């Protein structure tokens, strides 16, 4: 659906993005993950035709973004970083205007409006001035604006920033429902967001793609060793030594916590020692409270990738 090749953008001699290449399948939800200034907005602005790239090409739904900008723009819904709203208009007035400039036929406008209001849960505030709406509602008006012409591709720049936790969950729900019908690219630095709503994550740092994969695969790739988290209620002084003696265990870290003692057991790669550890705990009556394998969270992956700048991990 979206093919991006060697996209580069320079502002003067500052390179905002360099050699960005990726594809997005139809119906997929893809996250751009990266710290401030990574180049997420820049990439999105190029794809939406807001500004041209310095070099590189991109096609959306088979149309080249530089040669056929009009065809591309008809097929894209874009929610910029700051929702582009006219505060002196009511929600309905605003969306009617959008429907017109997006080229929706006169007969279908009323229907498109109703549908957008419903999908973004705006029906109740449709008559209010946008300037008087709360941040969360404004964001939804911004999303309704992107959706109203039922575009094949949706590009959402940080759709959940500035929202309270409840609204974040609602917004993610709305985005999840878009998957399948629409191809979605969204950007975020709220990391769990990528895991919550996306099938694939592109990690971008200082204008370069450092990793492309599913959230699960990314953490699997980066796992250096298997770790097991063990919480015991009544460990004995020799517990650490006993654990260390289990075949395959490399090291044991020990720290107290509020509801008992936590042991982090590091094992050889590819060996799952959970059953052995469990039977040891039961056998010695250490009061087993919790036992689980530790996987790196996306936060860890993210920090690791961006700090080490490990290009060899690029998939």
């Amino acid at each position: 659906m979206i093919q991006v090749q060697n996209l580069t953008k320079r502002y003067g001699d500052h390179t905002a993005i360099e050699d960005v290449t990726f594809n997005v399948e139809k119906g997929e939800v893809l996250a751009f993950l990266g710290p401030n200034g990574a180049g997420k907005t820049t990439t999105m602005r190029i794809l939406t035709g807001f500004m041209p790239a310095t070099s590189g090409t991109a096609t959306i739904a088979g149309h080249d973004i530089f040669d056929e900008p009009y065809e591309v723009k008809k097929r894209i819904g874009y929610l910029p970083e700051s929702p582009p709203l006219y505060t002196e208009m009511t929600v309905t007035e605003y969306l009617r205007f959008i429907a017109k400039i997006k080229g929706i036929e006169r007969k279908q406008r009323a229907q498109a409006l109703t549908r957008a209001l419903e999908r973004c849960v705006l029906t109740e505030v449709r008559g209010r001035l946008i300037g008087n709406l709360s941040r969360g509602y404004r964001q939804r008006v911004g999303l309704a604006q992107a959706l109203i012409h039922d575009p094949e591709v949706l590009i959402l720049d940080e759709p959940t920033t500035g929202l309270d936790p409840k609204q974040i969950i609602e917004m993610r729900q709305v985005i999840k429902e878009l998957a399948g019908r629409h191809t979605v690219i969204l950007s975020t630095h709220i990391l769990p967001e990528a895991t919550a709503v996306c099938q694939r994550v592109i990690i971008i740092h200082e204008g370069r793609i450092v990793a492309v994969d599913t959230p699960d695969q990314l953490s699997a790739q980066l796992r250096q060793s298997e770790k097991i988290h063990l919480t015991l209620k009544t460990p004995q002084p020799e517990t650490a030594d006993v654990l260390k003696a289990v075949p395959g265990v490399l090291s044991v870290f020990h720290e107290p916590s509020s509801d008992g003692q936590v042991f982090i057991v590091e094992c050889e790669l590819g060996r799952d020692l959970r059953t052995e550890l469990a039977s040891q705990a039961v056998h010695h009556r250490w009061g087993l409270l919790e036992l689980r394998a530790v996987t790196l969270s996306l936060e860890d992956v993210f920090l690791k990738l961006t700090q080490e700048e490990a290009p060899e991990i690029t998939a």
Partner: protein
Amino acid sequence: MRSAFAIMEKELRVYFTSPIAYVVTAVFVLITGYLFYSIVLFASSQSLQMMRVQGALPQINLNDLIFRPTFHNMAVILMLTLPLLTMRLLAEEKKIKTIELLLTSPVSLIAIIMGKYLAAMAVFTIMLLFTAYMPLLMGTYGSIQWMPILTGYFGVWLLGGVFIAVGLFASALTENQIIASFVGFGIVLILWLIGWIAQGMSDSPLGPMLAYLSIGEHTENFIKGLTDTQDLVYQASLIVVGLFLTHRVLESQRWK
């Protein structure tokens, strides 16, 4: 074309939901009205005097005596007020980032510019129509020639069209409305002042050339009731140049 109308409709909605169109119209109508009133008073006292001297009702020309100075006044007041009408048009879109919405919609830059230009022209035309009481009043109580008045109005309307194109261009240059209005006013003032400079240099060959470039020179004929294609071409090309430069500025800002 359809999208240009959508933009125009939106601009008109903004004009009439914010105070700006009302304030600009009110200021224009009040000041031109006051000046018109003083001109009429002055003209009638003069003709009374002439009647006393000549002992008979003189043949006075209302067109020359009243409407020529009135059109001049209108031109000056438009120069001061129209930049206030145009300053918002693009500067505001850039400031609140809605330009990003317009430029990523399937709408051409030309449609955006035309929509905005036509909206300002519509408001300005309404402003001008509010002064229609002047010829109507004079026509009722005296005898006037209608053709020169219509030509004069057409000249002022064209002049306003140039001011609006210049103002739109100024608005494309900046995010700041105040700066946009000053720049717009500045450019118009320069176009006007060229005429004065030309007068001072009437014996050098540069004089007539500058006079040709001056906007006042080309409005003067219309106000006198004369239609000359040259004047029409001059005003129309200024409008086209203004809109074209607006287009270039917006396009080059995308490439930055």
